[in-house]
């Protein structure tokens, strides 16, 4: 077996292949930052376990509103967490809908329905992003 170097072109599938790995690892990292920061902010005594899990996956102040935290606006609700939430929404939604597209295209193959399917998933993706960013910024 002779070795040869393959220079991959920057196709859509190749970019999404890379993006899936990067976004997946980033989501695990963002969740780790969320849970570690929660403990640094005093989650051990002020937050119960379901609240901590909600905060880990989406650090939105509404997720910790029913806890023993005296003032949620101190540390738990600021621009840093808004950036974190937007990153989680972007990575999660894009990773998820791209995965859905890949699985569906594996089943139907390349056909007349492929552009329709891609258009539909693209609209769902934009809609989810808009809803996510709206919730993060205006609540």
């Amino acid at each position: 077996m002779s070795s040869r170097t393959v220079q991959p072109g920057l196709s859509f599938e190749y970019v999404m292949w890379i993006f899936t790995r990067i976004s997946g690892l980033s989501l695990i990292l963002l969740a780790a930052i969320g849970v570690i920061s929660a403990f640094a902010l005093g989650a051990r005594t002020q937050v119960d376990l379901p609240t901590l899990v909600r905060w880990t996956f989406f650090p939105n102040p509404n997720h910790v509103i029913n806890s023993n935290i005296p003032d949620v606006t101190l540390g738990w609700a600021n621009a840093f967490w808004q950036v974190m939430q937007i990153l989680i929404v972007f990575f999660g939604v894009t990773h998820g809908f791209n995965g859905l597209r890949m699985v569906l295209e594996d089943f139907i193959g390349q056909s007349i329905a492929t552009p329709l399917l891609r258009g539909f998933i693209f609209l769902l993706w934009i809609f989810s992003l808009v809803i996510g960013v709206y919730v993060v910024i205006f609540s």
Partner: protein
Amino acid sequence: MGLKRRVGFFAGLKYRGGGPMWAWMLHRITGIAMVLFVGTHVFASFFMQQTGSDFATNINIVYESWIFQIVVVFIVIFHGLNGMRIAILDIWPKYQVFQREALWLQWLVFIPIYALTVFILVQRAITGSY
């Protein structure tokens, strides 16, 4: 470019790929399930917050129930750990020869985390503190 293959579901199950094949299938199933369940939860939470819809609130009551959480926790932890294994082996492709060992390691990590989560969920359900 899809391969032209005409293999039914049950014929496909007879393919003896072993552990990595089952991990691949479970990864796809849990991925689709996560888009479905977490997506529904996100949209339900949006309408619960913005319009106070009873239907959306009921969806979230089902989603947050401990029986449903046992399923969701399996989906999320498995997909996360398996995706981490795939990404790590893709970063260092020379270790792909150890993918079966990596899969065993993955289950060794998965079982304690999942068992502890299920224990806590069931304990809280029985004692009624959740």
